[in-house]
């Protein structure tokens, strides 16, 4: 059957063309991502960014995080596990990428919690209870207060600190840096200035392992 052969050849050619184009596109995009970060290294870490771990740790993970993003909440414990498995060798720097509606208010509350020295407990409490205060991909800031109170924060103080003029600037700077670094989805990670080649926990683990191995050499 000549027609059948023709049809099968066309199917195979179209599919092969698609796969090859996709592979080429991804390779090109990966290279571009590396170039963007290399050219904008200053945008990775700012003085104001909250950080966990020793300042001289050989491996620095920069995470762009949206407290209202489900995947961020799912990744957080995994990242913590990796850090716990390599004590003193990994530093985690958080950048805010409040892409969800209402999330900037939650970020402001987190920033205010730093004044009480309770940033990490506040963040962990919010990520753990995210389903309660961020249904349907929108953050409802009025629902975070009970969670923060349970985490031991002084709400009255927190609410007045939230309006500090510096906080809006922090959020603005982080969003600007996210744009510069082409961070369009959360969470996004950079390990010692290297972007994730592909999204996922395995590529992240691989990138961290490589950085750890390189630092031992």
């Amino acid at each position, binding site marked *: 059957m000549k*027609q*059948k052969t*023709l*049809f099968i050849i*066309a*199917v195979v050619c*179209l*599919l092969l*063309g*698609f796969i090859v*184009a*996709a592979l080429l*596109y*991804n390779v090109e995009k990966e290279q571009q991502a590396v170039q963007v970060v290399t050219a904008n290294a200053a945008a990775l870490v700012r003085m104001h960014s909250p950080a966990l771990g020793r300042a001289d740790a050989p491996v620095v993970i920069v995470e762009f995080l949206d407290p209202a993003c489900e995947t961020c909440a799912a990744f957080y414990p995994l990242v913590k596990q990796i850090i716990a498995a390599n004590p003193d060798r990994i530093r985690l720097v958080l950048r805010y990428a409040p892409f969800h509606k209402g999330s900037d208010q939650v970020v402001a509350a987190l920033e205010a919690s730093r004044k009480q020295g309770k940033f990490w407990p506040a963040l962990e409490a919010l990520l753990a209870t995210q389903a309660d205060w961020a249904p349907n991909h929108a953050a409802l800031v009025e629902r975070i207060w009970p969670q923060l109170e349970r985490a031991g924060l002084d709400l009255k103080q927190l609410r007045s600190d939230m309006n500090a003029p510096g906080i809006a600037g922090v959020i603005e700077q982080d969003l600007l840096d996210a744009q510069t670094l082409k961070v369009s989805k959360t969470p996004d990670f950079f390990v010692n200035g290297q972007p994730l080649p592909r999204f996922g926990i395995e590529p992240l683990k691989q990138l961290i392992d490589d950085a750890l191995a390189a630092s031992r050499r």
Partner: protein
Amino acid sequence: MNGEARTWTLVFGAWLVAAGSTLGALFFGEVMQLPPCVLCWYQRIFMFPLTLILPLGLFPLDRKVIRYGLALAVPGWGFAAFHQLLVAGVIPESIKPCTRGVPCSETVIEWFGFLTIPLLSLLAFSTLIALLVAAHLRSRT
């Protein structure tokens, strides 16, 4: 070439256009990760099934597939034309049906200075209709 073989070739050509467009749309969406706007989704709804339905009429050749194909291609063309008018600014912003996230009037790709995704879609649907109509006329004589 006899009439039957010609009809087959025309429907096969229409399938090539549909399959190419389907893969192209998937490339924009899944590989380049450009989020499709609402109008793009409607055009996809009419384009994707053609990729599967047209071959059913090729093996063995069944002229009825031209009718079924046109039933999808014509509304798809309508959405593509509407989208094109929207991008060109002929239809005012206020009646555009896009609400979720991606505005349909935003131009994300412009090849050779004029080739946008909605224009590609309009060209694909127009070619599809032309090929299917030609196949229909061919099979009548």
